[in-house]
């Protein structure tokens, strides 16, 4: 017994030493930077960087309607993007998961290949495609569907389109790995018992893929909240998303680092709140499943 405990202790120290390099790296370059953000948010702004004078200026500005609005449109964008990714991604993931082994791999590779192209370049390509003198407008004019070119970029439509384009694989892949593990005999059983395909889908398939939907939604929603470069390249400059505002305050002169820090903290708090919400939902679902199981027994 004593020997075993000793062995256990030795093993723990060994694991601890192994984890130390990555742990200290992440503490130093991931965790501490957020503490720096926190500190900077209490400094006074300077057009280049900061003055080391403590003030609450940044927080007085943070709650202005302008920034509230940009938080709101970022939230709306993330919500729409996640929803559209789900609508397109679910059937696609379902098809991949239910294909034969050989086709499955080909389909997965087809989804992954665009990932291998630089994403700035892909966004740039959408700009060409959608621009007033771009292919889409030319084709529409050629076929007499429109007379004058449509304004397809520099608006929210383009932002949503490109966001869905970029984030779609992040939804498809977790959904696929979840659906693949599903017990399809349950679906056959439901059908045999007379449930319509529609009913089977909503009562069995969809509830069973809840974990995949949750994972995919997190992977799309949270990063989408902080979108910067997509709105910057295809969006309008009239309505700025929160990522753009933070970037401008950090990069463009006159800078305002304390304000950017305060806004980043707000974004961080929003994300943390959402994560807690997602987590509770996840636990709730699990509990309900267990309760149901016990009821049936």
């Amino acid at each position, binding site marked *: 017994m004593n020997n075993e405990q000793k062995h256990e202790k030795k*093993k723990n120290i*060994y*694991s601890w*030493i*192994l*984890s130390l390099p*990555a*742990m200290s*790296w*992440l*503490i130093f*370059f*991931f965790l*501490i*930077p957020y503490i*720096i*953000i926190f*500190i*900077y948010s209490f400094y006074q702004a300077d057009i280049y960087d900061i003055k080391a004078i403590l003030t609450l200026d940044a927080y007085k500005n943070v709650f202005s309607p302008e920034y509230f609005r940009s938080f709101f449109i970022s939230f709306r964008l993330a919500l729409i993007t996640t929803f559209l990714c789900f609508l*397109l991604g679910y*059937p*696609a993931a379902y*098809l*991949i998961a239910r294909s034969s082994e050989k086709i499955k791999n080909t389909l997965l590779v*087809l*989804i992954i290949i*665009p990932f*291998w*192209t*630089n*994403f*700035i*370049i892909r*966004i*740039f*390509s959408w700009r*060409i*495609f959608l621009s007033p*003198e771009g*292919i889409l407008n030319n084709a529409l004019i050629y076929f007499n569907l429109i007379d004058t070119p449509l304004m397809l970029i520099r608006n929210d439509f383009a932002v949503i389109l490109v966001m869905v*384009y970029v984030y*779609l*694989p992040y939804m498809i892949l977790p959904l696929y790995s979840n659906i693949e593990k599903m017990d399809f005999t349950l679906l056959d059983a439901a*059908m045999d018992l007379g449930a319509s*395909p529609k009913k089977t*889908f909503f009562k069995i398939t969809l509830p069973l893929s809840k974990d995949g939907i949750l994972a995919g939604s997190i992977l799309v929603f*949270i*990063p989408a909240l*902080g979108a*910067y*470069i997509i709105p910057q*390249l295809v969006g309008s400059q009239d309505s700025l998303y929160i*990522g753009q505002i*933070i*970037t401008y305050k*950090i990069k463009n002169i006159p800078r305002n680092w304390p304000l950017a*820090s305060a806004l*980043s903290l707000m*974004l*961080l708090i929003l994300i943390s709140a959402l994560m807690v919400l997602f987590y509770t939902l996840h636990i709730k679902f699990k509990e309900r499943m267990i309760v149901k199981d016990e009821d049936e027994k």
Partner: protein
Amino acid sequence: MKNKNANIFTVTTFTFVIIFLYIPILLLIVYSFNDSKIISSWRGFTFKYYYLLLKNREIINAFKNTMIIGVLSTIASTVLGVLSALALENKRFFGTKFFKGLVFVPLIMPDILMGVSLALLFSFLKIRMGMFTVLIAHITFCVSYTIIVIQSRLEGFDYHLEEAAMDLGANKTQIFFKIKLPLMMPGIIAAALLAFTLSIDDFVITFFTSGRGFNTLPVYVEGAIRRGTITTINALSTLMIGLTLMFATITKRIRKYLIAV
């Protein structure tokens, strides 16, 4: 038979998704050979832009930087990943939960927050931004991915093999290098590939941590789009697509080979 409608629906959606995903890529390839300054009109076939590309010092420099950062951050984050995955084999050492949280949270953090926080850290520490700071940033966002990929491969590890080797008189170093490491290899390679892809693709975090004068390819491309000097970008993108596809095929071969071994 009952599912026929559902099948038609999933196949249609999938086809739409594929067309959607490939439109911009095909477009770039076609237009990289277009002999026209205006993107929309087709003026005949040319290799002009490829020639201009190879003469452009800035692009070549940015390409070199991207590769250096990509390789170095891949090596560093993979080594950190291997060590951490080995640590996480032990499910309950002191601070496991904290460590796991620390590994998972960066995965979902928006790039912009990581970019801003690192930029402010470097300014706080009065470190001049350049290649060094970009490298630190890239290792930081790659390391979570490498840890998770390698660790998930270790999850299915058959510990009887280790015991068998021990029974046969192998010492710990031998067990590690002759049994564990080779079995971990597919995971390590997958992790390294992922890290490399993430690194050469990153724009936002590099944009915040690179400062003036140090460009990676994505940062250069974004600048070129902003300045409007876009003619060579199509050619550049096509070359990059070609390179990545080549890279993907080669690595697939390597992986197949490793699995066969």
